């Protein structure tokens, strides 16, 4: 009977193992579309058999463990690319918005420089025409407004990026808390010998979300997973998370502080947060400073030219444009100081019919400013820079997107649930289960036959 009992045990084990495999397959199918879920496979091994007194002892199969098909290196690459994508997308979106102010729209600075220039040319032909004078004044006002609008567009994009800093920081804090919690649960599960695959999937998913917000570096330590920002500020150590804070800085913008109150704004890179900080603190201030220089120098030179002449009331030319007294934010604050067309210094000799000073006013548009460039060239340089930045940010964002798609495909080839594969497995394990059940019923039949041996007189 020893042999039959062994066979029965083996049959029951076959049922157990097939059942576990069927469970795993079902679970895979159920989670086929769960984000971050990694395909699970069963590790089954054969038990050793020994020959004892002519009987086979042992044998059968055991379920060793359920494995998640995971490639940690790929995961890390995906995290890095996700960070880069986050910052590239943020920068690209901001620049797309900013560049609309520099397009050839008819209300941009280039168009207004053009109308000021042509209205001055018209004034040269008819210096005493009130409508020609009015056009010059109106063109000056439109130019000042174009500077104001462009500057407002830039600062608008800047404060939008500032808003992103605050919201990113609070999302980061919520995600790091989730990661710390998952780390704790995972440690417990592992300690009690359970399969932590699903927890790991969830954690990987959250870490990837975190990567899209800020560049992080992930490492393993004795306490569990350790996550820091690229510059080493700890965010998660095992089951403990460290919150970042955003506080209003002296420049009016949100500054990011670590858990100890150190300002780490300048060190943060990657992700939406890194991109927003880059746009807010580097890219847009660069454009604004060029725009302010242009506004200051143009207004200064135009006022100087205005001072060379006499207005229609016989007074020496007063400043045409006025700039903010602080000397700051010239583009945002530039306005026309003259209140009447008669104040334009058209005359060079004091008589009302002279157009002598118009040439001086016109010359401001075609002569180099103190920066060494004509107003048109200085502005064109800015247009090129904005356009080029927007174009390369867009290209970079697309390239990273492609790269990320490639990596996700690779990850999918390792970890994703393939329904065809699971269907085939389902059939396979079903057959195995049926065969296991047949072993049990066969042994039962044999046992009955064996027990009936004594009672049957015919034998």
């Amino acid at each position: 009977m020893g042999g039959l009992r062994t066979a029965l045990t083996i049959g029951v084990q076959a049922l157990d193992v097939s059942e576990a495999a069927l469970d795993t397959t079902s679970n895979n199918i159920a989670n086929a579309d769960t984000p971050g879920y990694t395909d699970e496979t069963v590790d089954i091994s054969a038990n050793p058999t020994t020959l004892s007194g002519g009987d086979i002892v042992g044998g059968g199969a055991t379920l060793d463990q359920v494995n998640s098909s995971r490639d940690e290196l790929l995961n890390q690459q995906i995290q890095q690319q996700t960070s880069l994508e986050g910052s590239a997308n943020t920068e690209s979106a901001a620049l797309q918005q900013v560049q609309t102010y520099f397009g050839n729209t008819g209300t941009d600075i280039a168009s207004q420089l053009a109308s000021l220039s042509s209205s001055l040319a018209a004034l040269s032909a008819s210096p005493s025409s009130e409508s020609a004078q009015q056009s010059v004044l109106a063109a000056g006002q439109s130019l000042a407004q174009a500077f104001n609008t462009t500057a407002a567009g830039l600062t608008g994009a800047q404060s939008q990026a500032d808003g992103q800093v605050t919201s990113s920081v609070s999302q980061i804090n919520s995600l790091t808390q989730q990661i710390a919690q998952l780390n704790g649960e995972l440690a417990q599960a592992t300690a009690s010998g359970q399969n932590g695959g699903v927890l790991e999937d969830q954690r990987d998913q959250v870490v990837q979300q975190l990567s899209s917000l800020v560049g992080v570096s992930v490492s393993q330590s004795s306490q569990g997973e350790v996550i820091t920002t690229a510059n080493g500020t700890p965010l998660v150590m095992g089951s403990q998370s460290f919150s970042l804070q955003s506080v209003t800085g002296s420049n009016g913008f949100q500054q990011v502080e670590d858990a100890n109150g150190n300002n780490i704004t300048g060190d943060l890179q990657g992700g939406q947060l890194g991109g927003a900080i880059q746009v807010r603190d580097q890219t847009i201030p660069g454009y604004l400073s060029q725009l302010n220089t242009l506004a200051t120098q143009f207004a200064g030179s135009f006022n100087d030219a205005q001072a060379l002449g006499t207005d229609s009331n016989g007074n020496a030319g007063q400043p045409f444009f006025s700039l903010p007294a602080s000397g700051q934010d010239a583009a945002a604050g530039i306005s026309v100081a003259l209140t009447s067309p008669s104040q334009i210094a058209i005359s060079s000799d004091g008589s009302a019919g002279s157009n002598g000073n118009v040439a001086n006013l016109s010359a401001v548009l075609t002569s180099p400013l103190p920066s060494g460039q004509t107003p048109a060239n200085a502005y064109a340089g800015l247009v090129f820079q904005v356009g080029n930045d927007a174009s390369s940010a867009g290209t970079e964002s697309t390239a990273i997107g492609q790269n990320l798609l490639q990596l996700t495909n690779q990850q999918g080839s390792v970890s994703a649930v393939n329904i065809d594969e699971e269907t085939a497995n389902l059939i396979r394990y079903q057959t195995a289960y049926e065969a296991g059940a047949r072993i049990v019923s066969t042994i039962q039949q044999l046992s009955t036959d064996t027990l009936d041996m004594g009672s049957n007189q015919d034998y």
Partner: protein
Amino acid sequence: MRVNPNIVPDILADLQQSQVSLNTALQQVSTGKSVNQPSDNPAAAAAMVQNTIETGDVDQYTQNVSSALSTVQSASSALSSVVTELTQAVSVGTAGATGTNSSANLQSMVGQVQGILSSVVSQANTSVGGVYLFGGTGTSTPYTPDPSSPYGYTYNGNSDVNSVAVGDDISVQVNVPGSQIFSNSSNNVLGSLSNLIAALQSGDSSAISSATTAVDSAVNYVGQQQVLYSNAESQLNSQETNLQQDTVSLTSQANNLIGANLATAATNLSQAEVENSAAMAAAAKVLPNTLLDYLEPPS
């Protein structure tokens, strides 16, 4: 090798890609521009700044040329009339200097020359669009009667000139002040006519003769002044041609910089449409396929 069973992201990326091409092609066809924002071609967008300014200027310079031309032509024709009238005065003076005229004749000659003087003065006071052609840069009537003046009129203008901008750093002088043409100290046109009137009134033949000679030299002098206007006119005409060429080259530059080649854009559009529908058709075919579709359901 196991491949990624999840083809949805790939399909979405392809669809998005073909959608982007479709949008770009559509925008180019509908706007006729290949550069619709600076990032489409930063260098072209920057070059368009200069082009926009120059195009506006050239349009205005072209208008300036035509208004300057009309000013210069009016002035020139006024001077032609003055020359004709002065020539008449010379004939009158020559007839008066023969010494055979009765006092009544002389008196009628005085009347003729007085008429000529007032006509010349009215030419000198010509205005176009409210601007006096011969008043310098002043805005008051250039010549008004003044009994205290040796020639009976006072010049109220100034000796300044206006130049009209007709190009970047190109301007053309459009007026010669009356003080230079009509009441110059060395060649005083109005003075010579007044002197002739006085000589005719005196009846002194030699005085009439010398006064007539002075009017005759005034004819030459005004003729010389007229040349200044002719020069300005030819300068303006040649500048007009230059500006027309500038307009053409600026337009073609703008077209090269940001214009879309419509044939290419239309081809791109139809190609993008084909790609887009192909990508969608492929997606529709591939997405729902699994092994389950081919398995018999368990009985």
